[in-house]
């Protein structure tokens, strides 16, 4: 292809040039034109090249008139450099000097954030599940990280390709003008959740759900001395709260999924959060009333003293955990109530409520 184009341009430039110097000059111009031509659309290439050839010839003529002699290699090279690299010159004729233009670019990153965020959350969720179900969890996790990143990369590529297609097809952007300042999110009340925060919590939610419905299991034995251990299990007290916890966990997962799509705070989300945490406090109260929550059984010859020590430790940890969780949730409810009250007092000046 290249040789064919150069030959054609050489023919045009009369290869019966009288001397070797002139022949080299013509060859350089022919190679330049061929390099531009091969990057041009077929239907316009001939016309563009004819004009470019004429422009170069005019410049060379002017240069020779200025020098008072035939232009040499270096002078021709300088003229061609002035015209620009063949790749640049050809691209200027294409009219497409960007993949995604300024009209689509802000939306490109907005959509990427959501799509890649979901892909990472789903990818790492799958990796975690596989790792927990594997006999070699660490090896499975490391193998899976590559796949999760691959999913994120493919998502990024697909979104990019869609936006390039939208740019090329000049997709209608009128919808972007249909926004209402009155419906802007209340980012001044609470900063939107970051992508990392949302994705991380979502992975945790999925793992907990799978654990709760017994799809995955964690090691439940703790060593008490060499060769002896204690097995921990939920006591029957948890049976009463099994379904409430499951419903609550599904709800929390849905809310965290929504955080990726709409990370901003809203009154509805605040009310949902308060309701969820109140339900959580109720569950904690029921559990606190139903001690013991964990049963400890000896494994491989652990004696009663050792088991009693483990029981005291585990019950202590459980009670402290219940207390800490209750405290955090009460504070969370308080914060959400405070946010609702702030937004209920419609301020004259929005900057007064800036966080």
């Amino acid at each position: 292809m290249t040789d064919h184009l150069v030959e054609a341009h050489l023919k045009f430039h009369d290869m019966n040039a009288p001397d070797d110097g002139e022949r080299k000059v013509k060859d350089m111009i022919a190679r330049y034109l061929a390099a531009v031509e091969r990057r041009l659309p077929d239907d316009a290439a001939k016309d563009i090249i004819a004009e470019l050839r004429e422009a170069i010839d005019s410049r060379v003529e002017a240069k020779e008139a200025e020098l008072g002699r035939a232009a040499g290699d270096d002078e021709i090279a300088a003229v061609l450099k002035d015209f620009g690299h063949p790749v640049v010159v050809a691209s200027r004729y294409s009219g497409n000097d960007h993949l995604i233009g300024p009209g689509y670019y802000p939306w490109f990153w907005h959509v990427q954030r959501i799509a890649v965020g979901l892909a990472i959350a789903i990818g790492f969720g799958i990796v975690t599940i596989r790792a927990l179900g594997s006999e070699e969890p660490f090896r499975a996790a490391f193998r899976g990280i590559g796949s999760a990143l691959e999913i994120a990369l493919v998502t990024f590529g697909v979104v990019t390709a869609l936006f390039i297609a939208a740019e090329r097809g000049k997709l209608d952007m009128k919808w972007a003008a249909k926004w209402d300042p009155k419906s802007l999110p209340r980012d001044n009340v609470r900063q939107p959740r970051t992508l990392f925060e949302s994705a991380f919590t979502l992975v945790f939610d999925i793992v907990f759900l799978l654990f709760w419905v017994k799809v995955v299991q964690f090691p439940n034995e703790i060593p008490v001395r060499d060769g002896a251990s204690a097995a921990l299990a939920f006591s029957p007290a948890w049976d009463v709260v099994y379904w409430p916890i499951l419903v609550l966990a599904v709800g929390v997962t849905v809310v965290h999924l929504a955080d990726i799509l709409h990370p901003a705070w809203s009154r509805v989300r605040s009310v949902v959060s308060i309701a969820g945490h109140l339900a959580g406090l109720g569950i904690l109260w029921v559990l606190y009333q139903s001690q013991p929550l964990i049963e400890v059984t000896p494994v491989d010859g652990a004696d009663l003293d050792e088991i009693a020590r483990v029981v005291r430790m585990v019950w202590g940890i459980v009670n402290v955990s219940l207390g800490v969780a209750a405290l955090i949730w009460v504070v969370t409810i308080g914060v959400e109530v405070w946010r609702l009250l702030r937004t209920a007092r419609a301020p004259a000046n929005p900057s007064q409520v800036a966080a």
Partner: protein
Amino acid sequence: MPIGPDIIEALRLELRRGSLILAVLGTLRSEKYGYTLKTELGEAGVDIDEGALYPMLRRLEAQGLLTSEWREDAKRQKRFYRLSADGAAALEHLTQEWRGMNRALERILGGPPAAAGLKEGRQ
């Protein structure tokens, strides 16, 4: 923090971009081929490299603002451009816009317009 030369250069190119089209349209009120157009622009103080000029001419022609014709001149085939009727109307509109903008900027900047042309630029 001092402003880097790359930022100044980017701003300068942005400032020039629209003006170059106006200069090209204005110069093509009389018929010219590429090389004489570039020379005339340069003499008027508007330097533009060919790598940008020829694609621009082609684009303006595709938009219906210019017409072109291949003709022999000094024993060579050359493409002559001139303003179309639509191009003349567009030029009139853009010139009014430019003059209004120029007056506004003079008021804002508080000084006479710079005498220097748009030198050494690329589109």
